[in-house]
């Protein structure tokens, strides 16, 4: 499916599939939970600011897990924080998506061997949709991760699982 406006033929009639409509609505307004952990959060904030402008993809910060669609795990996940992240994730309503941003939350990063306090990858507690590599990733990389997530949502189906 292209953009919905391509489906306009005449006047104000739109013809599309329910699935495509739902997916288009979902991927176009991913409200992001206001939540940052470490230095990756600084890059995430830079991505939200005017220069990179997350808002043009419909991503706006929402300071409540109950009204958020996406959580960006931006930084080192300590064992102490991991229990809190799990609780925040469980408070988010479905459908919910996770971007794991940076090496720390992907796999433990520089703390992989001697970090007695670090969870070696946030995917040990919550299911991750898109991994963004980098230490920290540049805003362009995070934007690319978001576009990948939008592609994933675009191919979702009510009857079969997304790939």
């Amino acid at each position, binding site marked *: 499916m292209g953009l919905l406006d391509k489906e306009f033929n005449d006047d104000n009639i739109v013809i599309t599939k329910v699935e495509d409509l739902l997916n288009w609505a979902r991927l176009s307004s991913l409200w992001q939970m206001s939540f940052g952990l470490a230095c990756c959060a600084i890059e995430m904030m830079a991505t939200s600011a005017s220069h990179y402008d997350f808002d043009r993809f419909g991503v706006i910060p929402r300071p409540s897990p109950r009204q958020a669609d996406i959580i960006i795990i931006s930084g080192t996940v300590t*064992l*102490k924080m*991991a*229990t809190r992240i799990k609780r925040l994730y469980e408070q988010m309503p479905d459908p919910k998506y996770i971007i794991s941003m940076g090496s720390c939350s992907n*796999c*433990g990063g520089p703390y*992989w*061997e001697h970090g*007695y*306090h670090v*969870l*070696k990858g946030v995917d*040990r*507690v919550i299911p991750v949709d898109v991994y963004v590599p980098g230490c920290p990733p540049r805003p362009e990389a995070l934007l690319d991760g978001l576009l990948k997530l939008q592609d994933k949502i675009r191919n979702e189906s009510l009857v079969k699982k997304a790939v």
Partner: protein
Amino acid sequence: MKTVEELFDLVKAKFGDAILQMNTSLPKETVIEVSPEAVAEISWYLRDDEELKFDNLMLLTGLDDENGEKVKLEDGTTEIKGGTLSVVYHLESMAIGHKLVLKTSTPRETPEVESVARVWACADWHEREAYDMFGIIFKNHPDLRRILMPYDWEAGYPLRKDYKNPEFYQGMKVPY
């Protein structure tokens, strides 16, 4: 302004046996070693004396001296028996401008040091950190809890040289 030698003579004259020795062999700073039971008393004196006025505790840190006997366990890991843990105090007088480093050592099996949290309020969290990382008990501390690790952390004190990380914490796998 007083030199470390002058300061050592002053506290040695006042506290006698509680002041163990002055270590001048270190590359950067001269360290005065004191006994762990007398730390608080010496700190009150250093802070309140008109000629010393050590009004600022710049740093308080724990230290694993790793000077005990190393015992190889059956699973291939080592455990340290005996030896000491230390606490290091970096003091500064903002009023006068001189500095001083104190160090106290305490047995590894029963690590107990007098708290200085009532002398310098900033020592409160520093001592909690030293307790969290090394298991040093600060006697008369107002609120000695873990500060960085989770409150229910049962695997021990992470910065000890013979620390072993647990396999699991609350169902989460810890090793890579």
